[in-house]
């Protein structure tokens, strides 16, 4: 992504924060949490709300979505450089959000593919399949897996 990211801060071994500055200032949190599968972590991302809770379904509409996502990608790059053996799982909080992420990945795939191998998870509730992401093929993905090319 060619967007200049926001400055971010590591506040815990697996947690980062930054502030989105658009129509208003919104504190964002990015978190990597180990999943049941070995060496796979979930990328969680959401807004810090005024009452201190977090919301990963917020549609903040702050006018800086690509800059926010660029910052998440920079954090992802940093974290995976520190932990090159991990695979990062991520999905949108809704189907629409996952579709949005798919469109963005498709747009920036050529840049992304220089550093990462990207898999898409497709399927139904019963049985899923993991396939190498192909920017030319339009599929409905459930989630993505990203691994740094060592």
């Amino acid at each position, binding site marked *: 992504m060619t967007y200049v990211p926001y400055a971010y801060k590591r506040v815990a071994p697996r947690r980062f924060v930054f502030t989105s500055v658009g129509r208003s200032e919104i504190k964002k949190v990015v978190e990597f*949490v180990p999943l049941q*599968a070995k*060496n796979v972590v*979930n990328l969680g991302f*959401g807004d810090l709300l005024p009452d201190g809770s977090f919301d*990963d379904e917020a549609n903040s509409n702050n006018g800086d979505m690509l800059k926010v996502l660029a910052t998440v990608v920079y954090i992802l790059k940093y974290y995976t450089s520190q932990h090159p053996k991990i*695979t990062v799982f991520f999905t949108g909080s809704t189907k629409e959000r996952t579709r949005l992420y798919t469109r963005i990945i498709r747009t920036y795939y050529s840049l992304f593919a220089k550093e990462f191998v990207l898999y898409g998870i497709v399927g139904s509730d019963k*049985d899923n399949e*993991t396939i190498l992401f192909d920017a030319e093929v339009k599929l409905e993905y459930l*989630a993505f897996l990203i691994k740094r090319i060592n």
Partner: protein
Amino acid sequence: MPIAKKNTARKKMKKRPSETVVVVESRISAKDTLFPGKVAKANKILSKTKLPSGI
């Protein structure tokens, strides 16, 4: 002082065995998360997914 009284006095002065206090610190689990719903969703999807080799 009679010997019996001395012994009683010594017994009284004997230190009681000290008590050991164990402080258990609470620890945040590695799996603690701000987004438990997302983590549960991720585990559910992965449980039905065969991961490619190399992961």
